[in-house]
């Protein structure tokens, strides 16, 4: 379902020097797979997810999801494709402070370009255990509850792929397991493939497929 081939990405420093970040010969994720990419902080995991989501253009190679080469789509097409086919859970949740839990989830449906049943947002929030907190703003929710809202928002458009960027990094250890369990359970229920990046072995050890970023990426990790 997701296929990366010879993906290359580099940044340029102010001095003009080229700084390679990604050089991935191949990465494949099947539908409903649950995959963890493990790597240390700053090695380029987030850049990889941004590239898959079409938020960061790549320099070479191809990224295909359901047979569509994301890199060849125009920017507006990438935005629309992302809204329909890719969910994204951020490390810092990234809920909008002025919106309620329900509105944050509805926001995920706003840019899809299709009419969607808004009751799905309520159903999803109920599914993640927040049916009684629909009208609470993020500041009134616990950290764990905020992350659950973020999960519901990422899944509201029934994407094919859910990208999760260190989803437990800002959560206390007691709640980390709950979030991982929730992500895995909901993705299975919704038939969504999960690609999660983390630096924590305790998380990666729970997944059937773990990819070491340093092994996959041909760019040497800076010391």
């Amino acid at each position, binding site marked *: 379902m997701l296929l990366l081939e010879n993906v290359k990405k580099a940044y340029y420093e102010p001095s003009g020097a080229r700084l390679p970040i990604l050089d991935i010969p191949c990465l494949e994720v099947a539908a409903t797979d649950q995959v963890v990419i493990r790597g240390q902080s700053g090695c380029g995991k987030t850049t990889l997810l941004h590239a898959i989501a079409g938020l960061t253009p790549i320099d070479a190679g191809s990224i295909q999801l359901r047979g569509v080469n994301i890199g060849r789509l125009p920017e507006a097409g990438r935005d629309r494709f992302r*809204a329909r086919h890719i969910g994204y859970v*951020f490390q810092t949740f990234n809920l909008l402070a002025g919106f309620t839990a329900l509105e944050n989830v509805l926001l995920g449906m*706003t840019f899809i370009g299709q009419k969607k049943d808004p009751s799905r947002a309520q159903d999803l929030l109920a599914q993640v255990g927040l049916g009684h907190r629909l009208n609470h703003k993020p500041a009134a929710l616990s950290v764990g509850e905020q992350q659950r809202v973020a999960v519901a928002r990422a899944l509201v458009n029934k994407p094919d792929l859910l990208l999760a960027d260190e989803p437990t990094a800002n959560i206390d250890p007691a709640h980390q397991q709950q979030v991982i369990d929730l992500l895995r359970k909901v993705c299975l229920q919704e038939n969504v493939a999960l690609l999660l990046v983390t630096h924590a072995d305790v998380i990666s050890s729970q997944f059937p497929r773990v990819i070491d970023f340093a092994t996959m990426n041909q760019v040497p990790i800076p010391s």
Partner: protein
Amino acid sequence: MSFWKIAWRNIQQRALASSLTGLSMALGVAAMIAVLVIHGVSVRQFEQDAEGYHLIVGAKGGKLQLVLNTVFHLSEPIENIPYAYYKDFVDGRFADFTEVAVPYCLGDSYTTDTDSFRIVGTHPDLFDKLPYGNHPDGSSKYYTFQNGGRNFHPDAFFEAVLGSVVARRGGLRVGDRFHATHGLGGEDVHDQNAFTVVGILNPTGTANDRALFVNMEGFYLLGNHELSHEQATQRRQVMATEHGAHLEHHTDTDLDTSAGHDVDAEDGTVTEQSSDHENGTGVEQDANAKQNEEPAAGSALVASAPNPGQRQSLPEDLREVTSVLVRLADDMYLGHVKDTINEGQVAQAVAPTYEITTLLDRIVGPIHAVLLVLTILIVLVAGISILVSIYNSMNERSHDIAVMRALGASRWAVMAIVLFESILLSVSSGLAGIVLGHALIAIAGPHVEARTGVVLHFFQFDTWELVVIPSLIALASLVGLLPAITAYRTDVAKSLGNS
């Protein structure tokens, strides 16, 4: 969720900054609305006040001054003109061109503790035959009287009709009596004779709401309102010159024949007059009148006891008028009558609508334009404050914009949301400003009406108000463009990385 709702949530999130910028916009729009409505109403009213007649004839001098003191009861009267000028329109040289002529005798006032209103000695034709404006369908509006009231009778010398504002502020009712004060705002009370209120006009929205109208026959009988014989002789010589030799005889005949009658004020009968009026005062006090007169300080209200009594009218050659309102039989006579009078040495004839239009164009118009420009500047400054407010928030909102982009929002979508925010804030503030502007007009209405006669209320609108909201949308789009472009250019990866 619609873009409008997202924009509204953004406004709510910055409640204090949004409220302050919105308030400045609302105040600017309110000021603009007040200027537009007050100017529109005033212009309509000024123009309406002078409708119903073609010419004002008065003493030579400032044309505008003549219009102001005759039509709007403002400014000092210039001078008086011979009574013969009025007679010219009744049965003299201009009678064939005239539909109705109404004399105005000014110089007295009615004073209360807080107000001073002008008294106009005039003829009942003012209310019976002259319209004071037009209905929306174009038909003429005529004066009507409040319940129980009527016009004064030409033979009842001491009857009076009041404008609605005078009645309300002076606490006068039909049947009440009052004394006039000599001069405008003076303290010399004509305490020998009192006028009886027989009618109160329904509000007209004209300056006449703020005046008292008394029978000019009674007005002439108040002290110091008659000419001496020497003055009368001079007047006759002047009029002989004005009319030319062929009219001199006509005028003399008029004066001779009209000066020899007594009028019974109660039944209106006219009897042969004694020669007493030749004694220089022309006024003879009546026993009944004295019985009803009360000592008064200033223009004190006198207890109601209508008894106009009998009076001997002032001979016409001892009379003057301040001005004459002339409604011609046809517009085509305007040039001839006006030119003929203006060629003389004593009087001038002015077309009030022309003078008022000139006043509005040359003085009021530029002032209005300056005020309008000032209010537009206020609105522009408020618009810029919206720009600054939104623009300053863009840095902290770049993260939210990046999140929306990550959720699938296009660059155009986030740009539109910021533009909508600017439009929403401007339009909601503008609507609040329109309501506030009309509320200010309604609050100021009674005070303005009391002082100028201009009637203002909440639901008076100016057609230019229709332009306000579209203009605000255009302004909001303009000032929202810069932050919207900033939103368009937001670097998603960088902004998400900063989180």
